[in-house]
């Protein structure tokens, strides 16, 4: 027998780089690198921009050639935002679920064992990107609406209408994405979480459509009032019903729901094995 069995005399290794403590800032940088280096980010956000801006401009140009009645000018951004929220939801789910499906989550949590920090960093980076881009898209559409749809008898939009149609809509879309991220963290499964979120967005209104009977009238009303499409419509000042949450309220409701979902995600992610 030759050399391989001789134990080397113990002499601890010391890295030349000193160890310092890391914080949320480092996790944020890491998550920023992660999100900008996968194609799904470009795809989903690109589709969102195309939908919001494309549909917004299309509707604006269609409407401007007719004389609209009654509808607030900025409200024509609604359709684009409703559809544009879907790719943001997809990205929100993928930000976390793709880590589970690829096994990357193990590497991530080995590098940063604080699971809360990882989830927080992901949520912050994603929400900021989603908010900035969707607000920007809404701003372009609102500007086009205000510029193109003019004429006698059409009131120009008020300050709060401007704010809700841009920052409000952008916040709403970002919150929907955050909710999707929380659901993705809890379910760990991309297709499952995206389907669940589509259900959340579309199902209440679809169900309400089929509740024609009188006995279900109150359920039907509530379903419409609290549905996501109605919430976005309300932000644009065109709620489907005269009752239910008004003004900024739909946004606070979604914020509450998202906070609860994120708390749930934090709880399970800290409890589970990965």
């Amino acid at each position, binding site marked *: 027998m030759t050399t*391989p069995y001789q134990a080397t005399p*113990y002499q601890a290794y010391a890295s030349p780089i000193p160890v310092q403590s890391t914080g949320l800032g480092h996790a944020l940088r*890491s998550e920023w690198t992660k999100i900008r280096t996968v194609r799904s980010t470009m795809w989903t956000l690109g589709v969102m921009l195309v939908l919001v801006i494309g549909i917004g401009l299309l509707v604006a140009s269609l409407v401007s050639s007719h004389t609209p009645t009654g509808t607030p000018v900025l409200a024509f951004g609604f359709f684009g935002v409703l559809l544009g929220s879907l790719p943001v939801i997809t990205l929100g789910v993928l930000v976390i679920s793709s880590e589970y499906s690829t096994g990357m989550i193990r590497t991530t949590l*080995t*590098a940063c064992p604080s699971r809360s920090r990882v989830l927080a960093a992901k949520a912050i980076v994603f929400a900021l990107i989603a908010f900035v881009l969707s607000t920007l898209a809404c701003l372009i559409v609102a500007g086009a609406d205000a510029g193109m749809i003019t004429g006698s008898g059409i009131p120009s939009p008020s300050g709060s209408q401007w704010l809700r149609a841009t920052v409000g809509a952008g916040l709403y879309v970002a919150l929907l994405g955050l909710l999707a991220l929380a659901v993705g963290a809890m379910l760990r499964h991309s297709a499952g979480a995206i389907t669940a979120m589509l259900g959340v967005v579309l199902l209440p209104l679809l169900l309400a459509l089929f509740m024609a009977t009188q006995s279900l009238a109150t359920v039907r009303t509530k379903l419409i009032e609290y549905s996501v499409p109605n919430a976005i419509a309300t932000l644009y000042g065109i709620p489907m019903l005269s009752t239910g949450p008004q003004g900024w309220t739909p946004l606070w409701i979604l914020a509450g729901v998202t906070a609860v979902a994120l708390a749930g995600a934090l709880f399970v992610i800290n409890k589970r094995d990965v």
Partner: protein
Amino acid sequence: MIELHGLTKRFGEKLAVDSLTFSVRPGMVTGFLGPNGAGKSTTMRLMLGLDRPTAGDVRIDGKHYQDLDEPLRYIGALLEAQARHPGRSAYNHLLCLAQSNRIPRARVAEVLDLVGLQAVAKKRTKGFSLGMGQRLGIAAALLGDPTILMFDEPVNGLDPEGIHWIRNLMKRLAAEGRTVFVSSHLMSEMALTADHLVVIGKGKLLADTTMAEFIRQNSRSFVRVRTPQPEQLRDALHGAGITAVTAADGSYEISGVTAARLGDLAAQHRIVLHELSPQQASLEEAFMQLTAETVEYHAHETPPPEPVAAEPVAEPAGAWGENWQQRGRGRSGEGG
């Protein structure tokens, strides 16, 4: 230094890790052996805080994993699964890990160079071969220049050159005073790299010993002699005070005497020899005996059509990889 105290992990009914207590010490390569499903990967995930232990405790230099400030500077781990996003390039994969532990960006290029992946650094890892993925995993492990390295079956998927490279890498890392903990199924592989040995089966600790001690206890060397004049040979051996064991195929197995001495003896007595070969009972065999009761997933072999003359060393079950034997036999010559 990694210390395990009564570490236990249960998945439902399944006790994957059963009160393991051992230490992994710096300055040497510690081999972690066990058959499929023994609980090696689970133990490593428990060490990294990825799985929560059912009972017991793991400490890294006295701390729990989650209390390490910059964990990549303490431990670099190559996990069993290729734990990375296939859509991200090798460079960016390492970059995001580096950033979370404030490791300078320059280090990313350094480790890519070290594992020989610099040419494909900007490529998405989707198209990587098994071996390239393994190298990237090793690059990630080395990223923080850590004092502890943990490799789960690192030679998996590597070509012979890659295997040679990782063996030397592990020995070099240990020689620098680092703790190197490496899992494997192959005793023969460990015999070439490990200084210390931890063997588990069905989650239980079966052995915790130095490699040299394991070899001393478990390797039996003898000389096989085959002759058409067995009677004369037995008399000659008897006359010289040497005891021989008759093997199943009629040859003699003689221990404690060199082949040269036996050859001389046969020549003196004018005995014709058809075989005179030094033999080494393999460590693989010893390992299999040790873990025999704990092997969970047995391969069912179809019996050979007719009994084949016994091999110098008993053939293990097919599941244990057929090619170890060549290496096992040549081991003493191969050295390190």
